[in-house]
């Protein structure tokens, strides 16, 4: 790990000023960044710790929208009575991330900003029509996740919160890599007044919507299975953990499980 200067601002404005330096990186829970630094895959000259900024914490409900501050830990999302009541699928998802110690440090903002192709949160953000709020704007989930580890965030821009409009029903189903806990495939289903959205993580280079499965659910909201033509291996990831065909099969089965689990 290369040396770095450490900053712990207490005001968002101070953090943003420090992050104008191109060599500086923000650190939230550090569950991905610290292993990345250990491997030398990132070598920032400065780390700007967001942990001291009070406005980045907390879970609030207003006008049917649940807003979760970027520094809110997975453990707090998993156990929040507000999230359990209005977004049960999201609480379930947060409780399946990594392990207990990781959930005690990792944050929703960090996970969303990192956009790991096998992270859990991006599936919920996309299926729940969430808005990613930053220091300067609000970005719809459809526009936020742009590619593998890529997002619409500009240099120096940080996520401050994620806003979830309460769905009618939602659920998450995941097949975790037993070593890492990351999703080999994970499917989040959100049922909204405007229709049902199905988002798949882990299977491809970036979270995506399974539009053919959404179309089936528009006709038959309780569909119990999805045939191979609806989600094939084209464009999915193949690596030592699983082939693209296996991931496609997992995603179809998990979509059916999530539909069966909708609450």
């Amino acid at each position, binding site marked *: *790990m*290369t*040396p*770095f*200067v*450490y900053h*712990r601002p207490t005001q968002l404005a101070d953090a943003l000023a420090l992050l104008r330096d191109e060599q500086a990186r923000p*650190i939230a829970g*550090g*569950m991905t960044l*610290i*292993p990345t*630094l*250990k491997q030398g895959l990132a070598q920032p000259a400065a*780390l700007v*710790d967001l*942990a001291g900024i009070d406005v980045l914490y907390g879970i609030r409900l207003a006008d049917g929208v649940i807003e979760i501050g970027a520094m809110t830990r997975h*453990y707090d999302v998993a156990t929040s009575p507000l999230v359990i009541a209005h977004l049960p699928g999201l609480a379930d998802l947060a409780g399946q991330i*990594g*392990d*207990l*110690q*990781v959930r*005690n*440090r990792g944050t929703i903002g960090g996970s969303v900003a990192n956009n790991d192709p096998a992270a859990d949160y991006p599936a919920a953000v996309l299926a729940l029509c969430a808005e990613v709020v930053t220091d300067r704007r609000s970005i719809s989930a459809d526009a936020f996740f742009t590619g593998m580890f890529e997002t619409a965030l500009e240099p120096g821009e940080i996520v401050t919160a994620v806003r979830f409009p309460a769905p009618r029903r939602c659920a998450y189903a995941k097949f975790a890599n037993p*070593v*890492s*806990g990351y999703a080999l495939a994970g499917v989040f289903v959100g049922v909204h007044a405007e229709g049902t959205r199905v988002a798949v993580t882990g299977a491809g280079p970036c979270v995506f919507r399974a539009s053919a499965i959404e179309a089936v659910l528009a006709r038959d909201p309780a569909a119990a299975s999805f045939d191979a033509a609806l989600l094939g291996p084209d464009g999915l990831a193949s690596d030592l953990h699983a082939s693209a065909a296996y991931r496609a099969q997992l995603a179809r089965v998990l979509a059916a499980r999530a539909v069966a689990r909708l609450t």
Partner: protein
Amino acid sequence: MSEPTSRITLEVNGRDVTADVPSRTLLVEFLRDNLGLTGTHVGCDTSQCGACTVHLDGIAIKSCTIFAVQAQDATVTTIEGLDPAADHPLQRSFQRCHALQCGFCTPGMIMAAASLLATDPTVGAAEVRGALEGNLCRCTGYQPIIAAVLEAGKELAG
């Protein structure tokens, strides 16, 4: 360029500690190398094995995946500070149940389990397994560990 350092002040096992450390010092390195608290082990150094589990403000975290400077103003408890007489119900039940063989994972197991039992000592085996998902043991096959945590939970629940 000289190594950037940070001054940190935190409470470790009931003792106030202040030190100047390189900013990249991991909490586990600070505990072991600066404070001599070698009961906290480094197994994988990749956040997988849980041997480095300590409590940060009362909750279980992996001290290999947090910088010491991030624990500024926090309260850290290691296996050495869990019970002044090394006589915590978990320490006794791990011995009784033969919940260790080589003992390398044991401090992390006990700290993770202590965090769980502090939340709810009446948890069942499924919750214990869930809470220890991030702690690996290559000796015991886990069954005696689950049994030990359940026994300690009963004692703590009175």
